[in-house]
């Protein structure tokens, strides 16, 4: 007998069991929706009593959304930030993956780069932000450099681990069948490293968003981060929440979307691989 309690389902699901399962799924949706609704109602109810320079409430945020979308301000600042994210992230992704592949393949490169990678990966990179802005300026270059620095390391580390984790037996079999180097990469190494690379990309996106906002806060000239600071300093809490919520939605869509991709290409993935 090999089955454990986890998969001890009845062999033939009866109609009643199916009904029960449907009812619990429905119950789960109801609890989640109820919880969100309750929080929104309480927030609306008590938020109205708080001084508006300290806190706000959902309908006020909604109308602030209307104003900031209507006059194009949200999109103006958001597009600046997203452009920075796109530049930094694409550069970080390309360089990170290439370097990770080289490191995984060449022992020399690995030995040389590992201490550096380890050091940079465990330090709070944000401490370098004032220096980066000094070196690259307060424009797009300085911000993109920040995003690059934040996104580059998770990609190198994960790609490297992916290449290192290729099953040695597969490599051996491929070699015994006289696979040449190009085929080895295309058929064995890249497919088995791919899930690691996607995980690296997800980590890079969430770190890249942090870097993007941090760079906005540091330079305080453009971008959603600046929008948050400006409205917070003006005591317009309703307006302040608009960029914050927009950022949450973007982060949620990107990060959860990549999680779905990860589960598709590697359903056996270990969620403990969180960093």
């Amino acid at each position, binding site marked *: 007998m090999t089955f454990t309690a986890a998969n001890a389902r009845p062999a033939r699901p009866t109609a009643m069991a199916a009904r029960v399962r449907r009812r619990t799924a429905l119950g789960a949706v109801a609890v989640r929706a109820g919880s969100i609704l309750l929080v929104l109602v309480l927030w609306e109810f008590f938020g109205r009593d708080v001084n508006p320079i300290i806190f706000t409430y959902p309908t006020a945020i909604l109308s602030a959304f209307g104003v900031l979308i209507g006059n194009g301000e949200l999109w103006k600042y958001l597009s600046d930030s997203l452009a920075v994210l796109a530049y930094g992230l694409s550069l970080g992704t390309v360089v990170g993956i290439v370097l990770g592949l080289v490191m995984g393949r060449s022992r020399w490169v690995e030995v040389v780069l590992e201490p550096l990678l380890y*050091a940079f990966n465990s330090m709070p990179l944000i401490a370098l932000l004032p220096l980066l802005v000094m070196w690259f300026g307060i424009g797009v270059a300085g911000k993109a450099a920040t995003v690059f620095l934040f996104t580059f390391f998770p990609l190198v580390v994960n790609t490297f681990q992916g290449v290192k984790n290729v099953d040695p037996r597969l490599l051996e079999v491929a070699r015994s069948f006289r696979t040449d180097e190009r085929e080895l990469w295309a058929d064995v190494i890249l497919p088995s490293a791919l899930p690691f690379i996607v995980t690296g990309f997800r980590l890079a996106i969430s770190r890249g968003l942090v870097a993007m*906002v941090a760079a906005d806060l540091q330079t305080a000239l453009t971008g959603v981060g600046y929008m948050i600071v400006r409205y917070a300093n003006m005591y317009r809490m309703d307006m302040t929440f608009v960029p914050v919520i927009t950022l949450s939605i973007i982060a949620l869509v990107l990060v959860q979307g990549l999680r779905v991709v990860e589960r598709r290409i590697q359903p056996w993935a270990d969620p403990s691989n969180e960093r």
Partner: protein
Amino acid sequence: MGRLRDAGKVHELVKSKDPALQRARRREHIRLLFVRVVVVVALLAVWEYFGSRASPLMFAPISRVLQSFGRQAVSGELWKYLSSTLQNMAVGSLIGISAGLALGVLMARYRLLDLALDTYITVFFSLPMIALAPLIQQWLGPGPLASVTIVVLFTFFPMVINTYQGVMRVDAGLLEVARSFRSSEWQLWRDVVLPGALPFIIAGVRFALTRGLLATVVADLYTSIGGVGYLIMLYTTRFQPENVFVPVLTLGIIGMTLVALSQWIERRMVPWAFASKEQ
């Protein structure tokens, strides 16, 4: 049973007493260590070379950074700012980690709580928490309270998620056996659930500490203007890169120490999680 036997074999290999094998492994270790030292020295030499040729307003060679390090350390300036940073980080991480642990356990235990809260946990875990820093500052004013709050926010959510996943993934077979032997709820938690979840919880602590350090620097830079973040800002605006690198390097060393320390603890407390990786 097959899996168990294999695990035993791995253990034997790692702890092999064969003197030839041990010698070979020691030689390999020494060689690797030597290469690493050479690499680090070479990197420092490159830094020195380019640093002494760059504009002194933009970059500094490592020798001048070390001089500044000595000066800031002796005058007590570094410690004065570092101590407030470390204090905020310690207090915030402690609160965030213990609260996260508690909520993670509760959510794994009570399905209603899980369903009611998991949306918020996912949202707050994904959103770049740094976006809330200006709001926190506006609410709590600059100072240690705002810094600690930011650290709590950064450390709490990863801890909840890791603890929750750890508890949920405890081997259902073990739970059933414990129940059939009439374990009480308390015994079940002490003997089965918590040891089973330990690898996840410890990984969560490591993750939370790294984020906690980041959060402290964020707070130093953008909310409270204190601690080592203040030192970095101060010397950057004065164009004294040799002085900027002192707190930056110190933070790097602290980060590496934290990671190394938590990995060491991980190895000591959950050696079985490493049995397969050591090979």
